[in-house]
């Protein structure tokens, strides 16, 4: 079944500064939606508003055209920029709680074969990040928000993550933001550019140049 997540009428102010004011964003099952923008334009704030972490003065978030009052993990999951799984957790616990298949994971990442009982504090930052990304890509929510999933990953791991997202998009919708924009452009079905609190649907690099996101 195809689900649609839409958000608009978001007004977010922090102090006197208007962070988000004219937003429209749409995400569907089977699509990868990219969100690009320069530093400080409010990409993370927008994800936090969507996930319900940040209270906006106004917002309208709809799932299948119905207003969403409570955001639960069966609908939306969110990968923040920072590591978020407690260091004392083991990989085994995370796979159990997210209901994931460890064999599938080790087929793609053989380095983890002997690490099922490892605690997160014994993993490197990149390894922790990879498990976190895998858990949220593969979990059974209808939509997943990924904030900078490619940061701190080696090129080969970035390719693996892109492959996982593309494979899993048949089951859910993704909203992804990252400064490594080439990867976002490569895998996204639609791209929004966030600038001055407004989102614009962009289709090519020339448009991004004209909007000042990349150098012309």
């Amino acid at each position, binding site marked *: 079944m195809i689900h649609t997540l839409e958000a608009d009428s978001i007004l977010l102010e922090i102090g006197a500064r208007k962070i988000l004011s004219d937003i429209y964003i749409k995400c569907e099952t089977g699509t990868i939606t990219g969100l690009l923008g320069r530093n400080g334009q409010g990409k993370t704030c927008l994800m936090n508003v969507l996930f319900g*972490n940040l209270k906006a003065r106004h917002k309208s978030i709809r799932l299948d055209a119905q207003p969403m009052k409570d955001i639960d993990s069966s609908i939306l*999951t*969110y990968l*923040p920029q*920072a590591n*978020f799984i*407690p260091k004392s957790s083991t990989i085994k616990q995370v796979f159990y709680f997210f209901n994931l298949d460890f064999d599938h994971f080790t087929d793609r990442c053989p380095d983890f074969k002997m690490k099922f009982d490892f605690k997160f504090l014994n993993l490197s930052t990149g390894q922790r990040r990879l498990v976190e990304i895998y*858990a949220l890509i593969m979990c059974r929510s209808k939509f997943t928000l990924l904030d900078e999933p490619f940061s701190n990953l080696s090129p080969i791991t970035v390719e693996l993550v892109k492959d996982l997202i593309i494979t899993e998009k048949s089951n859910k919708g993704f909203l992804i933001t990252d400064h490594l924009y080439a990867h976002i452009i490569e895998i996204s079905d639609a791209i929004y550019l966030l600038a001055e609190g407004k989102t614009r649907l962009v289709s090519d690099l020339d448009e991004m140049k004209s909007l000042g996101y990349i150098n012309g």
Partner: protein
Amino acid sequence: MLVWLKFFVQGVIVLYVNDYNKSEFLYYRNLGISKRKLWIGSFLIDMSIFIISLLIAGRFL
């Protein structure tokens, strides 16, 4: 006096954990457990242990 001290310490812990473990709350949110549910659950367990300990200690005083 002891009860007020307990509430004061509890308040300090809530402020510290909310700030220091901010991103880890997202782990539980992604599993469907809100911050409020976590705090209510841990508060109830903590207060139960505190009250039971008080009652046991009271028997020997």
